[in-house]
C-alpha cells in the first residue's frame, strides 16, 4: 500500500460496505484500497455487481440502510470521512467533494430552473450575493462547453437534451472548485460525440485546476484514453490497480486480462471474441475463496483461500495467487 501521505487527496483503505437483506449479507464492497493524488484521474472499472458504484457512494457517505459501511478508512486530505459527523460530511459534499451521476436527473430538479438550482448549490456553502453567484454559474457553464450560457440558465431541465443536462450536472459539481470529483458512469447513456466533448472538458479541467477525478465506468476504452491510473473490481473486491499503461498493456490479474480480450479489437475482425467461462454469481462473491476462481483458467487448489491485496512495485496492487506473466503480449 502506498505510503499514507497528506499529499494524497484521497486514501481509501480496505473499504467494506455490506447490505443486510432477507437472504443474508451482501458484501457489495469487500476490500477496496487505492489512493488518488491531486490532478490525477483514476478509472474504476468493473461490470454489474462489481461494487464500483457502491464504492463511490460509500466514499460520499450516501449509503442508506439496509447498507452500511462496516470497515476501512476513507481519508480525504488526511481526515477520515467515515468517522466524521454527518454535519462535517455535508459541509464537504458539493463543496470539496462532488459527485456526478449517470442520470443527470439525479442531480437536477425537474421543477426548478437551472439558475435557481446552481445558485442554490453555490450559496449552500458560501455567502455570496445572488448576482455574484449567477455570474459564477455562467462562467462555469462556459467551462463545460455550453455556448450561450445565459439562455441555458433560464431553462428548465426538460428543455435541454441529455448531453446538455449532463454538462449542467458536471458544471454544478465544479461550482465550488472541489478537490475531488467522483463521476459514476456519467457518459454511459450519451452519444459518442457528446461523450468525446465531455471527456475533453474533464481532461482540461483536471489539468488546469488540479482537481482529482475518479471515473467509474464499465467501458475500458474510456479509461484508456482518460485516466492515469485504473482499478479493476470484481465481486466487491479490488483485484488490480496500477497505471493505465501497465494494467492495459500488461495485466496481471486473469480477470483483467480476460476483460481486455473481450473487447472487440480491429485486428480480430470477424473472429470469435474471448469469453469468460461461467457467470458472475452472488454465491462466489460471498464465499471465502477467490471470487473469480470458478471462472479462472489458472485457478488451483490454493485459490480456495481469498488472496489479499498486495503491493507490487510503485503503486501497483494485485489480488491474485497466480498472476499472469508480465510478458503476456
Amino acid at each position, binding site marked *: 500500500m502506498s505510503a499514507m501521505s497528506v499529499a494524497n487527496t484521497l486514501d481509501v483503505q480496505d473499504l467494506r460496505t455490506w447490505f443486510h437483506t432477507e437472504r443474508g449479507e451482501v458484501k457489495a464492497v469487500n476490500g477496496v484500497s487505492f489512493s488518488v493524488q491531486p490532478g490525477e484521474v483514476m478509472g474504476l472499472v468493473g461490470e454489474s455487481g462489481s461494487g464500483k458504484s457502491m464504492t463511490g457512494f460509500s466514499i460520499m457517505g450516501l449509503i442508506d440502510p439496509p447498507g452500511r459501511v462496516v470497515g476501512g478508512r476513507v481519508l480525504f486530505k488526511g481526515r477520515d470521512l467515515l468517522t466524521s459527523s454527518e454535519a462535517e460530511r455535508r459541509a464537504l459534499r458539493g463543496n470539496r467533494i462532488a459527485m456526478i451521476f449517470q442520470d443527470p436527473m439525479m442531480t437536477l430538479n425537474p421543477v426548478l430552473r437551472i439558475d435557481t438550482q446552481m445558485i442554490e448549490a453555490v450559496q449552500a456553502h458560501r455567502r455570496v450575493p445572488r448576482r455574484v453567484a449567477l455570474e459564477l454559474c455562467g462562467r462555469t457553464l462556459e467551462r463545460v462547453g455550453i455556448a450561450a450560457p445565459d439562455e441555458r440558465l433560464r431553462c428548465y431541465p426538460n428543455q435541454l437534451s441529455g448531453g446538455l443536462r449532463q454538462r449542467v450536472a458536471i458544471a454544478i459539481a465544479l461550482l465550488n472548485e472541489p478537490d475531488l470529483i467522483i463521476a459514476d458512469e456519467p457518459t454511459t447513456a450519451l452519444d*459518442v460525440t457528446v461523450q468525446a466533448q465531455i471527456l475533453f472538458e474533464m481532461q482540461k479541467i483536471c489539468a488546469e485546476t488540479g482537481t482529482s477525478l475518479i471515473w467509474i465506468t464499465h467501458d475500458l476504452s474510456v479509461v484508456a*484514453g482518460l485516466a492515469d491510473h485504473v482499478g479493476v473490481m470484481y465481486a466487491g473486491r479490488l483485484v488490480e490497480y496500477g497505471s*493505465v499503461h501497465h494494467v492495459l498493456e500488461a495485466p496481471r490479474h486473469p480477470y483483467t486480462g480476460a476483460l481486455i480480450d473481450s473487447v472487440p479489437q480491429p485486428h480480430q475482425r470477424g473472429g470469435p471474441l474471448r469469453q469468460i467461462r461461467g457467470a458472475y454469481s452472488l454465491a462466489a462473491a460471498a464465499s471465502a475463496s477467490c471470487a473469480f476462481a470458478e471462472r479462472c483458467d489458472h485457478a488451483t487448489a490454493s485459490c480456495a483461500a481469498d488472496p489479499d491485496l498486495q503491493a507490487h512495485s510503485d503503486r501497483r496492487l494485485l489480488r491474485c495467487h497466480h498472476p499472469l506473466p508480465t510478458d503476456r503480449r
Partner: protein
Amino acid sequence: MNTELPAAPHGAPLLELRHVSKSFQRPATPASTLRWLKGQATARRPSPLLAVSNVSLHVGEGEILGLVGESGCGKSTLGRVVVGLHRATRGERLYRGERIDALTGRDAVARQLELQMVFQDPYASLNPRLRVRDIVGEAPAVHGLIAKRQQAEHVAASLERVGLRADMAERFPHQFSGGQRARIGIARALAVNPRLMVCDEAVAALDVSVQAQVLNLLMDLREQLGLSYLFISHNLAVVHHIADRVAVMYLGRVVETAPASELFRSPLHPYTQALLAEAPTLKVAKKKFVAIRGEIPSPLNPPTGCHFHPRCARATELCKTQAPALRAVDGTHSVACHLPD
C-alpha cells in the same frame, strides 16, 4: 425452411428498402393551434417529425449490414420499418424482390415471420408474467409451425441452440441474468425460423464479458443457419467486429455505406471521420479528445441542405442549400457529400 415462398429472382437481395421515409404525426399543442388560428400555419398540428428520410439500402443473403449513428439519426426507426412495426410513410420494402407492404392475411404473416427482431433491453423485452417455454413456444404453436405436442421439444431445441439449458424453460424471466435474457430473446426470434434478424442495439445493455458471449453466439448462428442481420448499434468497435458492410446515418439520412474494413480504414464523409476519431479505443496513448463543434440538432428542426453542415469544417454555400445524394465513389463505397475526401 418455409417452402411456400417464391425463390428470389437471381441477384435480388434478401431485403431491400427503396427511398423509404418515415414521419410521425405530432399531436396538436396549444402553441401550434394558435399559429393555425392566426393563419401562420396551414395545419392545426405541428409539422411531422421526419425520422427517416429517403433511405435506400439492402441486405443480402447471409450478410450482416451494420447500421451506426447517434441519437436522432433514425436507425431504430429504420429497424422497425424493416421488421414491420412501423409502416413506411413513403417508399417500398421488398423482401426477396417482392413488395410485401401490400400483402395481407397468411401471405403477410408468412413473410413477417421471416423478419424478426432482437431487442435492446433484456429486462423489458420479455413478458415478466410468462414462463420461458411460453415466451419461446407461443408463436410457433399459434402459427402452426409445430404441433402442440411438439412444443416442449421445439422450445428445448431453441434454448439449447442459444446456449441455455432445456430445464430453464419452466422459469420466469426475472430469475435470469441480463445475458441469459438476451439469449432467451434470441431463442424466441429463432423459434419461428427467420431469415433476417434486426438486432436493435442487442448488446448495448450488456456487460463487456457478456457482450462477447452474445456476439459470438450471433456470429455462430449466422454460420450455422445462414441468417442475415441488420445490426444496429452506436458502438463502432462492435460493428466493425461483426458487420460485413456498414451504413452510417445522421439525422434521418444515410451519409455513407461501405464494406466494414474499408469504412473504418478510409472514411470519406466528414461525420464518419469525426465519429471514428472520437470513439475511444483501448490504445493507451493518453488520448487527446478533439471536440467536434456544436450539438446534434434536434430531428424536429433539422438544418437545411446537408444536415451536417453546421458542424462541418469544410461546409460551403452549396452544402447549406442542397442536400447531397448518396453517390457511389467506387463499386461498393457510397457517400452523400458534396466534397468527400
